[in-house]
């Protein structure tokens, strides 16, 4: 049976409204936030309940068709890139905040709930959901679970995997399993730890139980402008070296500032080679003292202008520039590639210099936005696809930056995930045995290789005794867009 047949099978249960087979409509789902890769799915299903999801997955399992789950479709690694012969299961209609449980500091949500929506739901009770990706106004909790999303405040508060205590999971076989709950340390293997960040390859989460964090008593944010990223980096080292754990330290270089300014008119100090946004939160007395320290470190390391947010509105304005940075580069460049490498924080100044050198040599501009506190870089490689050769040069620069991160003992992806986009880099970071071992996990959950196959690992592992049709082909290879890596 192919996907069309599946549509007829699913219609009675899910309703006409939930099934999309029209070609033009299907095409609107052919990419997520990474628009460079497009594959039109054979069928799109908009699920509204766990039962729906389970039914679709079971049908796919029976038919041997691959499925891909999608939240808001804002991922930056092509994790929601569909399969041409598979089903795209869209979770955006499952968007109820089921419970805000203040006494237990937990929330239970459907996966389509938007990250910021959850925080807003908890705020009246003095709580919020800490992992705050820059796309939090649209990215879904389910998507956050799949990618183990971080955000600017993960330096202090951790990532999604540190905040998920329970999941309802539809396994690739179509069964509904409850894992964990509101209490921690459920006996047995830490399945949650494996599932969060598994990029949709181990099944689909249909309910998520998360920790809520107490809204801090005091929040203070400063914006510091430096002549050069070197000085900004030194300030960061001084802050961390003094034992201060800020809630967030973000850095943007001159090119990124230019883009952000054009987009949202954040009004960052003119002529800055780098700006730092440092945010401290916690008990008022602690914050007050540490803030003075931080300010001093910035000044001592060459900040020529320091602004301290006087109120929430000003704080939001400081952050606006940073949070819109990716989309904003669209204003200064027709096309761009966003990288997500991680390096040890202490290597920051040197790596930035190396990136500048790579950029100069290739004649390709690179704007830098990054989580300075934890060494997670987001180099934005700017190019114009219309100019012959630029696309290729941009790819090369991109790859060189990834290699740089690996060279310094970092990672190829800090928060965006591997997805389709970085699968080719996995063998640079891990050897065959490493990847093979990870794929044991995959085989445990998805022996038939139908749950978002072709993502993360460039070469799928055949799971034990399952011969025959090779369903794990990379979707780009399937669609004729790329060779097997």
């Amino acid at each position, binding site marked *: 049976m192919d996907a069309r047949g599946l549509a007829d099978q699913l219609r009675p249960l899910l309703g006409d409204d939930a099934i999309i087979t029209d070609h033009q409509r299907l095409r609107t789902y052919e990419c997520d936030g990474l628009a460079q890769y497009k594959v039109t799915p054979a069928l799109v299903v908009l699920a509204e309940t766990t039962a729906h999801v389970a039914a679709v997955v079971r049908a796919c399992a029976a038919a041997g068709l691959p499925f891909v789950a999608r939240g808001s479709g804002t991922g930056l690694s092509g994790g929601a890139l569909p399969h041409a012969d598979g089903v795209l299961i869209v979770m955006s209609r499952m968007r109820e905040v089921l419970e805000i449980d*203040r*006494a*237990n500091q937990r929330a239970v949500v459907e996966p389509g709930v938007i990250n910021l929506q959850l925080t807003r739901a908890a705020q009246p009770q*003095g709580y919020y959901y800490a992992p705050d990706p820059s796309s939090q106004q649209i990215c879904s909790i389910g998507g956050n679970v799949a990618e*183990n999303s971080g955000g600017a405040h993960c330096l202090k508060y*951790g990532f999604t*995997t*540190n905040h998920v205590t329970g999941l309802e*999971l539809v*396994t690739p076989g179509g069964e509904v*399993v*409850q894992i*964990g709950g*509101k*209490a*921690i*340390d*459920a*006996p*047995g*293997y*830490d*399945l949650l730890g494996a599932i969060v*960040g598994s990029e949709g390859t181990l099944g689909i989460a249909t309910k998520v139980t998360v920790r809520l964090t107490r809204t*801090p008593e005091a929040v203070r944010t400063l914006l510091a402008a430096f002549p050069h990223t070197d000085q900004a980096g030194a300030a960061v080292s001084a802050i*961390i*070296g003094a*034992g201060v754990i800020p809630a967030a330290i973000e850095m943007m270089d001159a090119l990124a500032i230019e883009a952000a300014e054009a987009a949202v008119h954040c009004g960052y100090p003119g002529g800055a080679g780098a700006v730092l946004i440092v945010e401290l939160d*916690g*008990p*008022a*007395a*602690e914050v007050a003292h*540490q803030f003075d320290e931080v300010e001093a470190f910035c000044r001592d390391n060459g900040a020529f202008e320091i602004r301290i947010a006087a109120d929430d509105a000003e704080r939001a304005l400081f952050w606006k520039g940073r949070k819109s940075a990716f989309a904003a580069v669209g204003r200064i460049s027709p096309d761009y590639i966003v990288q997500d490498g*991680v390096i*040890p*924080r*202490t290597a920051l100044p040197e790596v930035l210099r190396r990136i500048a050198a790579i950029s100069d040599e290739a004649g390709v501009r690179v704007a830098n936005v990054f989580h300075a506190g*934890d*060494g*997670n870089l987001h180099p934005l490689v700017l190019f114009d696809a219309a100019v012959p050769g630029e696309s290729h040069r941009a790819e090369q620069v991109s790859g060189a930056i990834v290699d740089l991160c690996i060279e310094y*003992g*970092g*990672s*190829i992806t*800090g*928060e965006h*995930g591997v997805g389709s986009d*970085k699968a080719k880099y996995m063998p640079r*970071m*891990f050897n065959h045995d*490493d990847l*093979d*071992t*990870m794929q*044991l996990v*995959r*085989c*445990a959950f998805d022996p038939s290789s139908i749950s978002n196959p072709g993502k*993360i690992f460039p070469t799928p592992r055949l799971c034990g005794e399952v011969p025959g049709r090779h369903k794990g082909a990379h979707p780009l290879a399937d669609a004729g867009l790329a060779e097997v890596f």
Partner: protein
Amino acid sequence: MGEIILENLRAATEGHAVGATEADAVDSMPARWVALPVSTEQTAAVMRVAAHHDLAVVVRGSGTKLTWGARPERVDLVLDTTRMDTVVEHAAGDLIVVVGAGRRLDDLQAALSGSGQWLAVDPPRRGTVGGLIATAATGPTRLLHGPVRDLLIGVTVVRADGVVARAGGKVVKNVAGYDVGKLLTGSLGTLGIITQAAFRLHPLPEARRWVSVPVTEPDRIHVLVQQVVHSQLVPTAVELDRPATGDATLCLLLEGIPPGVQSRTAQALDLMGAGATAADNAPDWWGMEPLVGGEVLLKLTHEIAGLAPLLSVLDDACAATGLTSHLRGSVAVGAVTVGLTGAADAHALARCVADLRERAPSFGGAVVVLEAPGDLKADLDVWGPVGGLQLMHAVKRQFDPERRLSPGRFVGGI
């Protein structure tokens, strides 16, 4: 045959393999050999030998928690990790450390303290770092700093078939591939042998104060905990000590910079009410297990607001079976340990545990038997009901298809 095996093990470890003695028994299950590799490569070689000869392998660090879990079905080889104890890399500026799994936690902390840093776990039984991971050991500071799983950023593991694999890395932010480290955390050595681990570190706090208050009414305990939890005190730890007789004590640990700690201490004294005191040192029960000589130790998890029902259920279960309990643990996290005494026989203990489990939904957690005397434990269901067990079996089958890593020790007979 045994001679050949010993030969092979000695070859794999450059001579560091011996026949086992009584002291090497694992939870009263006698072992036959002990191998002490000094590196990941040697560990891999040992595992290849084990694979070749179908040996059941139990990993041992300091052996502090070898009796946790169910008794293994068989133990042929004890793989001792204590020779893999080097601090491979301590990048103080990046607040990370890479360390051999055989290093004792205390020795690691000593090595880190010179830079004003520590690995933010303080469990009661401090053995090796590898054991810390394998047992998901937990202590009071978990409330603020998170459990071991959240501090582990990279791992080197040797599979049952001898293949060496790495996962994670040396940087805190890393989502490349599956988080195998988390899967290994708490796995009691049933998925692989951890030989090396990378952790994120925290700065040692400048100032610390413990604020304690005695509490008599059970309901008051819950109310106080809720007040603390929703306050702006941001305690590093909230521990309850509730002995069988006498008052319970609720104690907070506040850490930070001196003026901040001072201010928060005053707030805490105010919040905790009459009888609350502040001290520069921890109470003597702090971070210790409530072992009362009965040698039965349970781990109970609970929803934070489930504390009151848990205490009530515990008291009921003990009363019904003639046992007495001493509860101690991290009530703001939802993980406590309970020491039981007065277990006349296995039957009483089993009934008590069953009662607790039956009423566990009222406090929303699980009941696991950590320790019990051998004869009592043999008849107990150590683990209780486990969600997602089928998936766990599937994971085990992939990693250890021949069931040679601590067989029978884990949930569902894994």
